[in-house]
Each structure stands twice: as structure tokens, then as C-alpha cells.
């Protein structure tokens, strides 16, 4: 049961500040609304059972109506006040600390991720994946390049929309380490269902290590096969859309591939990151995610082997 409620995409996981508040508030709402539901059901059953005894009395019913309305008003007032207080407490708890700054730009159907640093060379550019140091507030700026999407990583926080023409933001405060998953929550077209975001919450040193690795340019290919893949990727269609820092590939249209093989999934959660799935994706991007914006390329067999070998080396 608890493993179930702690699922990697569960709103009850309580892995972030917002989410802990959510759990408490939800239980309060559940208790109070459950209490009122019980009253209704008991009254209904009583009315049905008592109908034969003819105990009904209008004045009594009239008095009870006033009591009932009073109770409902008090119940709602308590819930409104609790909801308001929790909302403001989340704001207060996350205010004033120098947060980590992340920019998330949604596209049909993937996430473009940038970590801003002191200088441009500090910047980290990746896709479909967030790494967060535990206990450090992160301010995520949310934008969209096309339609409305919604950022939702249930274990950490509630939703915030990414609206073209506007900039929203959300403050995350992860409370424990772990692997989590989020998913676009606003219908955004054909592959709305396959627009996941992997989130890794780790210790600050682990996070620093990850950041350093991500800042580095792509590894040079070592094997002959991977070199063939490098040549293909940087000279053919791939480079029109994808960026691989440290190589001539500098496209902007698709996700950054510089450290592709270090990520958890392919195609915004479509496949897990394995060799076999890299083959599947590259050979036929339209297979598991039909309608997405990466075209079918049509490889010769040896090119396919080479490209996958190169991509796998992009740790």
C-alpha cells in the first residue's frame, strides 16, 4: 500500500514541500467532507427506515434545517481557511532563499531544460530530465514554444501551465532523494500522452557532479564504429535539428543530445534508455510515438549500427 502511494508519479508521495502540505490538507478535507457524507447517508437511511413509524414532524425538520445549514457553513469556512493558510505557507517557506534557476521550455512533445549559471559556460542544456539537489529550492521558469502544456511532477508539487506568450514559474523544494516522474498535464495534441519528464532528486555533491559532467562538451567517439556514427550524425539530417556541444551539430529544433546516454529515457519517456530502444527510436521514430516531429530517416544497416554506437557513447 505505501509502496503504491509512494509511486514515482504519485501525488501522495510527499517528496516535496508542496506535496507534504498537500497530504495534510487533503486528509483534512477528506475528514470533514467524509463526515458530512456520513450524515447525509445516515439521514437518508433513517428516513427510509423511519417512514413506517410515521415519526415525521415538520417543526423538527425546520429546526434541523437551520442546524444543518449552520454546520455546512462552518465546515466550509474551516476548509476555506485551511486551504488559504496552506497556500500562503508554501509561499512563505520558499521565499527569500537564493534558489537554483532552471528554465523549462515545452515543445510538442518534449521538454527543453536549461540550468542558468554565473556565466554562459556554466550553463547546462539538456532535455526531458531534471536533476535537483535535495533541500535546495529551485525556481523553475516555465515557457512554451507552441501550445499550452502543463508542468506536473506530482511527488514534488502541483501543476503550473506553460502558456505561449507568457512566463510562469514554480518553486520546487525537494525533501528526499529518489527517482520521480512527471508528465504534461494539459492536452497538447497527438502525443500528449508521451510527454514525460524524468526527475532525479539527489544529494548536493551528486548534483554538483552531474552538473559538472553535463557542462562538459560531448565525448569524442573512441571506436571506429562510433566514429562512423559521429560522421553521420554531424553531417546528415540529424544535425539540422539536434545540438551536440563540441561538435558541428548545432540544431535547435529538437532535444539536445550532448549527454543523451546519461538520461533515463528516450522520447520524453517513450522508451527506457537501452541500446535496443535506441535502435528502435532511431530506426523508426514514428513507431511508438506516431505524429512526433522527428522524421523517419531510412538508414542503411551499417549506418544504423554506427549511429547507435555513437549515441550510446554520449554519456
Amino acid at each position, binding site marked *: 500500500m505505501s509502496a*503504491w*502511494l509512494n*509511486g*514515482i508519479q504519485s*501525488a*501522495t508521495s510527499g517528496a516535496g514541500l*508542496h*506535496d507534504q*502540505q*498537500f497530504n495534510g490538507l487533503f486528509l483534512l*478535507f477528506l475528514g470533514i*467532507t*467524509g463526515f*458530512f*457524507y456520513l450524515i*447525509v447517508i445516515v*439521514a*437518508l437511511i433513517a*428516513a*427510509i427506515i423511519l*417512514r413506517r413509524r410515521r*415519526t*415525521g*414532524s415538520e417543526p423538527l*425538520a425546520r429546526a434541523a*434545517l437551520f442546524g*444543518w445549514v449552520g454546520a455546512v457553513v462552518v465546515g*466550509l469556512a474551516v476548509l*476555506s481557511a485551511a*486551504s*488559504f493558510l*496552506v*497556500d500562503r505557507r*508554501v509561499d512563505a517557506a520558499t521565499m527569500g532563499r537564493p534558489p537554483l534557476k532552471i528554465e523549462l521550455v515545452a515543445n*510538442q512533445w518534449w521538454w527543453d531544460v536549461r540550468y542558468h549559471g554565473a556565466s554562459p559556460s556554466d550553463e547546462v542544456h539538456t532535455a526531458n530530465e531534471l536533476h535537483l539537489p535535495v533541500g535546495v529550492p529551485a525556481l523553475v521558469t516555465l515557457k512554451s514554444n*507552441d*501550445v*499550452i502544456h*502543463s508542468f*506536473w511532477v506530482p511527488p514534488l508539487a*502541483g501543476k*503550473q*501551465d506553460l*502558456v505561449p*506568450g*507568457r512566463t510562469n514559474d514554480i518553486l520546487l523544494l525537494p525533501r528526499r532523494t529518489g527517482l520521480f*516522474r512527471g*508528465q*504534461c*498535464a*494539459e*492536452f*497538447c*495534441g*497527438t*502525443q*500528449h*500522452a508521451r510527454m514525460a519528464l524524468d526527475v532525479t532528486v539527489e544529494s548536493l555533491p551528486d548534483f554538483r557532479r552531474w552538473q559538472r559532467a553535463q557542462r562538459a562538451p560531448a565525448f569524442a567517439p573512441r571506436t571506429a564504429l562510433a566514429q562512423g556514427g559521429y560522421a553521420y550524425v554531424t553531417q546528415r539530417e540529424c544535425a539540422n535539428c539536434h545540438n551536440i556541444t563540441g561538435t558541428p551539430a548545432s540544431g535547435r529544433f529538437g532535444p539536445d543530445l550532448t549527454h543523451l546516454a546519461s538520461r533515463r529515457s528516450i522520447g520524453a519517456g517513450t522508451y527506457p534508455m537501452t541500446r535496443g530502444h535506441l535502435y528502435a527510436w532511431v530506426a523508426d521514430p514514428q513507431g511508438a510515438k*506516431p*505524429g512526433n516531429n522527428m522524421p523517419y530517416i531510412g538508414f542503411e544497416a551499417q549506418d544504423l549500427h554506427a549511429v547507435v554506437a555513437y549515441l550510446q557513447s554520449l554519456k
Partner: protein
Amino acid sequence: MSDVARDGEALQGAELEARLHRTWSRAPGLWGWLTTVDHKDIGRRYIYTAMTLLILGGALAAAMRLQLATPESGLISAARYNQIFTMHGTTMMFLFAVPVMEAVAIYIIPLMVGTRNIAFPRLNAFSYWTYLFGALLLWVAFALNVGPDAGWFMYVPLSGPEFTPGKRTDIWAQMITFTEVAAIAVAVELIVTILKFRAPGMTIARMPLYVWSILVTSIMVVLSLPAVALASGMLLADRLIGTQFYNPFEHGDALLWQHLFWFFAHPEVYIIFLPAMGFVSQIVETFTQRPVFAYAALVLATVAIGLLSFGVWVHHMFATGLPRLGYDFYTAASMAVAVPSAIQIFCWIATMWLGRPRFAVPLLYVVAFIVTFVIGGLTGVMVASVPLDLQLHDSYFVVAHLHYVLIGGGVFPLLGALTYWFPKLTGRLLSEGLGKAAFWCVFLGFNAAFFPMHITGMLGMPRRVYTYPTGMGWDALNMMSSLMTGVIVIGGILFVTNVVLALRRPPDAGPNPWNAPGLEWAADSPPAPYNFEHIPVVSSHTPLWEEGPLNVMTGLRVDDREQVVTTAIEAQPDIRYPSPEPTLWPLLSAVALAALFIGSIFTPWAVVIGAVPLAVGFTVWFWPKNAPDGEPVIE
């Protein structure tokens, strides 16, 4: 004047009936069918059409549940699934739920207020045809694989020219226009019927609760539907002639659509729900054999819900990034709606306690309604809270919530009301046994299918996804929801079977099989074309439960379609008014309008060219006849 035949001492019984028949019956055969302006013919057609669309929308739901039964299912493609859920939401909200509520009112309200026809009966015929053409447009497009696929809420810019080229969205937007025209027309007819055509003596404080709820609902339709008509018109303009109302990259605004859409679509939920509350009041009254407890409180609750429902639309937009303080206002307003609803629930339960309830099928649906709808209302209180909503919004929790409200609060009372008024619609009673079997399947199947979705949503499953990965803890819950949908389908089949079997028996129900108190039960089952031989005169809430025969007034012409117009508050007889004759022009005008609307999907010129036949149709239809204007009633 002396040569004019009027009902009264001299003209009674069989001879009166024969003359009224001659005046009020429609022409025989197909011609009569096409030209009729009888509210009962049109109401019945409206009901059958809307229920057919419920079945179609339900079939789409079953298809979705089939796809979602297992993770990574390949049964239905992404593109097709998106069409299916768009069609399901659109059909259910625009082509089933709102129309069916108006349809029942078209049939029942004139009978309930004791008059011979609805106000503006030709407009009523026109409205039906317009609605039918809108429904056909959408479903034919779907059959030809050009159905809309950007969601029933059609958020821009996804629904804009850039991201959904082709005609799918234009078809959706024009379908909206059709149904808006139809719905607003009916609302106007109902408002006028209720305010001006009530039987003498039915003061505003003696109106049955169902009449109150339809009055409030119709006013809400008139106030809210123009918002979505405007919104969809602007969307069409963006798509067709390159305006940029919604384009954020050209100084348009993506959230403008959401404000306009929800300004309509939230009240829409209450437009569905308030008539259902009216059904519940009538059923509770009849099946406990006593007037509903606290009439005045129920009327005020109805009016309060109507007013509050206009102040809550932003609770659909808590995640869009609007100012915080604004959110608090909408939270409070949303929670406030719970108060009048709590009053209503209390009054119905108190009525059962005070009366002598008999658990026939309609009352069973009322019990199911209370058990189910209250859950939907309480989850509504949850999603009104900003911190909770930010998690629950757009997840399967909301799918559960909205179906608890719409099915528990709308469809259950509707099925109860159709069972209750079936004798009045067809002259036959439905079988109690089959009715109960259908009831239990629908009620238990619904709860078993939809309750698990609350949990699926809390576990992070977003809505409007055509598939989901395995290993998220969602598999068993989804399988449960899908299997139990099958039980709902069985319930639906039993309900339809019950109707078909009943229609094959000869009519035998008699005017008032339930010993109900309302005027509609004073007419025959089904009513004669003129509804009542003499116009009833009312002196209480529950006229048929009073001692002695029903009072009537006499003196209406029988050789002309004459109706009594009464004053709005006191229902004093005011003037006599000739109700329009049958004619083909509403149908022809609706055809011209359909040509214009459908043509304008392809070229703006259709508006110019199409206006000509439409103008001809309207001109002939409204050509002044030199019939006398309403004559004062001579007491």
C-alpha cells in the same frame, strides 16, 4: 362575435373534443410530420434525438475504456483516441446533456403550467431542426474521419490555424454555433411560456419546483451561451480570415479563450444540473405523496445556485498563473455553491421522512442520485481549494469528479424522470422489474467504474491520454474501471429494451397512474393535441390533490388555436392569443441556415450568399397575417 365557437356550457364533451381535434391536430402523413409545431411532437423528437446521442457518446466512452483497460494498448491509435475523447466530451455536453434537459422541458412545461402549446411554437420547430443539423454535421464529419480532435474545450493555440490545420476544428466551432442557436431559442420559448402562459391562478409562488428550475436554467442559458458563441466565432475568424484574437505571437491572448469558454462552460454544468434538481423535486413529491418540504427554501436555493454559478469559472484555471488574490475569491465562491446544494439535499431527505415513500424506479433513481451526487459535490469542494486543485486538476480524479456530478447529478435524475413521465410521453408504463434491473446495473456499475478513478488520479494519471506506461500502480485500477463500464452498458441495454417492449404494448396507463399532483397529469396519456379540453384554474401547489374536480375556465375559441395569456406574477387572465399554425418555413429556414453555417467553414462568402435564402425563409415565415392581435379576456 356570436358566430365564433367557444368552449363552455354549450360546447362540451365529445363535440368539443372533435372540434378541438380539428383545430389543433397536425396534417396527416409526412407533410404533417415535417410541418408540425406541436410542442409534444417536437419535444418527443428532441428527447429521442438527444438519447440517441447519449448512446453514441456512450459507445465512444466504451471504446476509450477498452483502450485504457491495459497499459500500452495498441487497440486505438493516438490520433483516433484524441478524436474519440473530443467527440465524447462534445457529444455529451453540447448534443446530449443540455439539449435533453431542454427537450424534456419542451414536452412537460406547457402541460405542467396548463396551456395548449409552447410560446413561439414555430421557433421551437426551427430550433429542433437546427439542433439536428448541428448533430449531423459533427457525426457525419466524424464518420468521414474529419471529426474534431483538439478536445471538447478546444484550447487555443492548439485549436488555432497553426497547430490544427484542416477543417476538423472549424466543424466543431460551427457545430457549437448550431447548438447555441437552438438552445437559446428554446430558452426564450420556455421563459415566455413560464411567465405568460401559466394557467389562471398559478401564481409565481404556486409554480411547481420543476418550473422554477427551468425558469432559472433558461435565464442562465440566455446569459451564458452568447459567451461561447462569441468565443467560437472568434476562433473561426482566426482560422478562416486570419484575425489574431488568440494568437499570443501577434498580440492576441491564449487565455482569453479559456475565460470566455469557462464563463459559459461552468454555468453549463448547472444548466444540466438544475433541471435535474427539478426532476428530483417532482419525483420526491409524487412518490412520497406529500408536498416537498420547505418549498421557499428550495426555490431560493435554485436561484442562488443560478447566480453563484456565474462567479466560479476561474476555478478551471488555477494552474494558468493568474494573480493569487483572485484565486481566493473564486475558491470562496466555489465553496459557497455547496450551501444551497446542501439545503436541497436536506429538503428531499426530510420530505421522505415526513411522507410515505414508495420505492418505485423513479424514487430509486433519486436515492441513487443522492448517494452519488453528494460524492461529486464533496470532491468539488476539494478541487475548489487551490493547493488541492493544483494536484488534482487534469488528472483522473477530475474525470471521476465530473462524472459523479454529471451522471450522478444529471443522468440518474433524467432516467428517473423519463421513467416517471413515460406514461405522459407514450401512454404506457415501463416495466417495474426490468426498470429495477437496469437501475441496479447503472447505479452499481457506475460507482464501481468511476470510484477507482479518484485513486488513479491521486496516483498521478493525467486525463486525455491515449495510453499509459505499466508499473505506475495504475493497471489494476484501470482494468477495474473498464470492466465495470461493461456493467453500465448492460444497464443501458436493459433500459432501452424496457422502452422498446413498452412501446409494443397498447397504451393503457391512464391519465394519472402515480396519483401525482401536477397539472400535466390532468391531461390524457399521451395528451391530445390541444392538451386540455378546458384550461385548468389552479388554487394550490398541488392541484390534483385538492378535493373535488379540477376547476376550469371556458370561453376560448375552438375554431382557432387560441391560448390564454396571463400576468407574469399573479397569473390573472390577461388576453387571448392565437397560437401559430403549422408550417414548413421553420424547416426551410433551418436548411438555409445550415447551408450558410456549413458553407462558411469553407469560405467567408457563404455568409453573404447564404444570407439570401435565409432572408427569404425568415420573411415568409414572419409575414404579417391580418389575424387580430390578442383580444382581452371577457370575464
